[in-house]
């Protein structure tokens, strides 16, 4: 299991194929989150800038990974999250979970992104052709996390 915090793009399938060779898994479940485009008349998204807290980010992701590994029988977990300037449509975050059985892989992957959304110190700034502003945290993200209690 590993976590990766990086500026560069990532290739989730080559990661998946390499990890698959190490395990006799029955299933993998992957999640990718993307920069969503918007175009509100004059206000058009040009890029997203992601700030993070180096050091704490890695600790938070490793902690979430451990919570998942302790809660389900998993063969492997891989988490990658980008920071810096991201273009519209680009992937922001990737998660791959390997398990013997599909239900555990689905639950663990879903759990990890729900926890990442509230516990991993990243902040998004949207930069349009006219302005830039910090994205507001969503109340639903707390609710999504709390349903795992």
């Amino acid at each position: 299991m590993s976590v990766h915090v990086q500026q560069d793009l990532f290739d989730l399938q080559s990661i998946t194929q390499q990890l698959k060779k190490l395990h006799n898994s029955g299933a993998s479940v992957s999640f990718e989150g993307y920069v969503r485009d918007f175009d509100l008349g004059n206000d058009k998204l040009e890029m997203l800038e992601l700030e993070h807290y180096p050091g704490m980010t890695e600790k938070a992701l490793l902690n979430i990974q451990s919570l998942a590994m302790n809660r389900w029988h998993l063969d492997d977990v891989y988490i990658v999250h980008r920071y810096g300037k991201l273009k519209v449509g680009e992937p922001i975050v990737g998660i791959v979970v390997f398990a013997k059985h599909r239900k555990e892989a689905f639950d663990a992957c879903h759990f990890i992104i729900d926890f990442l959304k509230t516990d991993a110190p990243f902040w998004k700034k949207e930069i349009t052709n006219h302005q830039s502003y910090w994205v507001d945290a969503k109340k639903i993200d707390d609710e999504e996390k709390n349903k795992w209690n």
Partner: protein
Amino acid sequence: MKIKLFYFAQVREIVGIDQEEIDVESDIKTLAELIAFLKLRGSQWQAIFDMSSSYRMAINQELAEASNKINANDEVAFFPPITGG
């Protein structure tokens, strides 16, 4: 005692710096007491800390509550609610 302070995102923009080291009296034992001390620095500090929904805290890179203890040489961070993923 010496404390390292880190600021991120909106909080960083409001205070105008990303990190600093401060020297505080050792009678400051909790995050709440540190916050009370920082609010005396001026209106931008009050603006951050008067709205409890607008900031989160970490001690030594772990999420923390106002009641958590702080010690000499701790790394304390203030930042807005998280919006990654």
